[in-house]
């Protein structure tokens, strides 16, 4: 579009004007200048001493270790992975129900997906944390708090994972089912041996993305309420910050989240690039 107009202008108005190359150079210079000014303002206006004291206080950071690793990080990893494993299988079941020929299955799956995708995760966690013990008084959740947290994160992630699996299953060519059926496999057998394994391969990048999201969502499970030994990374950093009146532990917790999620994000990009190459 830009080339069209410049060509037209060059054709009709042969006056001395800026060439597109020069114009681009000026625009770039302005962008760099704005950036430099913004940085300079930040440096001049901010009180670096105060910022460092509040957020990057080495003494406070040292106090957070090693418990922030042995309690916070450990719990965040356990919560997220157990929730993910549960969500993975539940999501697969919901996806298969969603694609089933049996109308009630489809309806249940649809309602499930809409409810758990539509509700804020924190609402689900609160209902599970407070409502469950009241509603099912005789039911003792095994491995508390791990059981309740896994269930909470599993229920929420299953809704997203189900939609991912459905997309994957539908992306497997129809000929694969037909070949499997022509070899005498039943519909269910074909699904398990031929379709689902290929569907999962197709959706590995989005599945990894869901894991990243779940690492972050796991920071909401504190509303279920537990004792210190059950604190996840966020709750651990937050309570230590409250105690000391210094935000550094939160920054440390944040960094540890990034240590988990950034490599996973890198992995997703790698996987996506690999798939793209594979298809061409």
């Amino acid at each position, binding site marked *: 579009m830009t080339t069209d107009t410049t060509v037209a202008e060059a054709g009709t108005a042969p006056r001395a004007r800026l060439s597109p190359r020069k114009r681009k150079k000026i625009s770039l210079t302005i962008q760099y200048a704005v950036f430099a000014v913004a940085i300079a303002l930040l440096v001049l206006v901010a009180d670096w001493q105060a910022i460092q004291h509040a957020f990057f206080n080495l003494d406070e950071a040292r106090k957070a270790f090693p418990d922030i690793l042995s309690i916070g990080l450990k719990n965040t990893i356990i919560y997220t992975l157990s929730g993910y494993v549960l969500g993975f299988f539940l999501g697969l079941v919901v996806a298969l129900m969603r694609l089933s020929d049996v109308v009630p299955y489809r309806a249940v799956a649809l309602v499930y997906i809409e409810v758990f995708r539509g509700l804020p995760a924190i609402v689900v966690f609160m209902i599970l944390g407070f409502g469950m013990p009241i509603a099912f008084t005789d039911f003792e959740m095994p491995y508390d708090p791990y059981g309740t947290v896994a269930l909470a994160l599993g229920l929420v992630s299953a809704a997203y994972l189900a939609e991912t699996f459905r997309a994957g299953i539908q992306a497997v060519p129809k000929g694969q089912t037909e070949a499997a059926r*022509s*070899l*005498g496999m039943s519909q269910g057998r074909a699904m398990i041996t*031929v379709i689902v394994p*290929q569907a999962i391969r197709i959706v590995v990048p989005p599945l990894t993305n869901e894991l990243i999201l779940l690492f972050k969502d796991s920071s909401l499970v504190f509303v279920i309420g537990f004792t210190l030994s059950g604190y996840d990374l966020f709750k651990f950093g937050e309570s230590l910050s409250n105690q000391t009146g210094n935000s550094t532990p939160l920054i440390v917790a944040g960094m540890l989240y990034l240590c988990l999620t950034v490599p996973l994000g890198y992995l997703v990009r790698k996987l996506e690039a690999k798939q793209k190459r594979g298809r061409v």
Partner: protein
Amino acid sequence: MTAAVQVAGLHKSFGDLEVLKGIDFTVEAGQVVCIIGPSGSGKSTLLRCVNLLEQPTAGQVFVSGTELTHIDVDIDAARRRLGMVFQQFNLFGHMSVLDNVSIAQRRVLKRSKAKAAEIGMRNLEKVGVAEKAEQYPAQLSGGQQQRVAIARALSMDPDVMLFDEPTSALDPELVGDVLGAMRQLADEGMTMLVVTHEMQFAREVADVVLFMDEGVVVEHGPPAQVIGNPQHERTRTFLHRVLNPTHADDEATTPS
């Protein structure tokens, strides 16, 4: 003796579109029957109705005397008597070649892993791709993939093999390998129902040729008759187009 395949009064509609308008034919055990006809005439639909990948709207299909279209038939069990080879190969992309030829034997016929591998390898050898056993489908040429697909179907010990344009998706220089494997299969006495545009194959290997057009069998008989001396105008026009593709628009001339 009961026929290997018997099709009686077969109709198939997709919504308002009637694709098959009453098809009758029989394939005797050991026969090779080739189905030819223009694009859209319903050849694939007919083949897919024979193993019930499509549910016929009306009519009956019998395989070795069992009615597949009967409402109480165990379709998964009945289908095992029919092997099918597709135009697009449809190998399982996530499995090695050996797993492709053994997975259904193990899961459906409950053969042991060793037994399934042995039978699979024998069939891979038969079609000349045994050295590819450990590779994945994507690493194979189209011709090799299609031969693996044939070995996969053969490993289920079918009574009848169905082929839907098995060479149409292949580069011309690879067609010969696949046709060679099919010819060998025919020589060994396999009952085969083949949709094809390879007229030379039909002429040399088929016992019976069916010419289909617009959902009906226009003409059938030995290849020397249907291809060599067709009786119907529609057959002549079709053959003229297929055999002289560069002169497809010329007036069809009656061979005499």
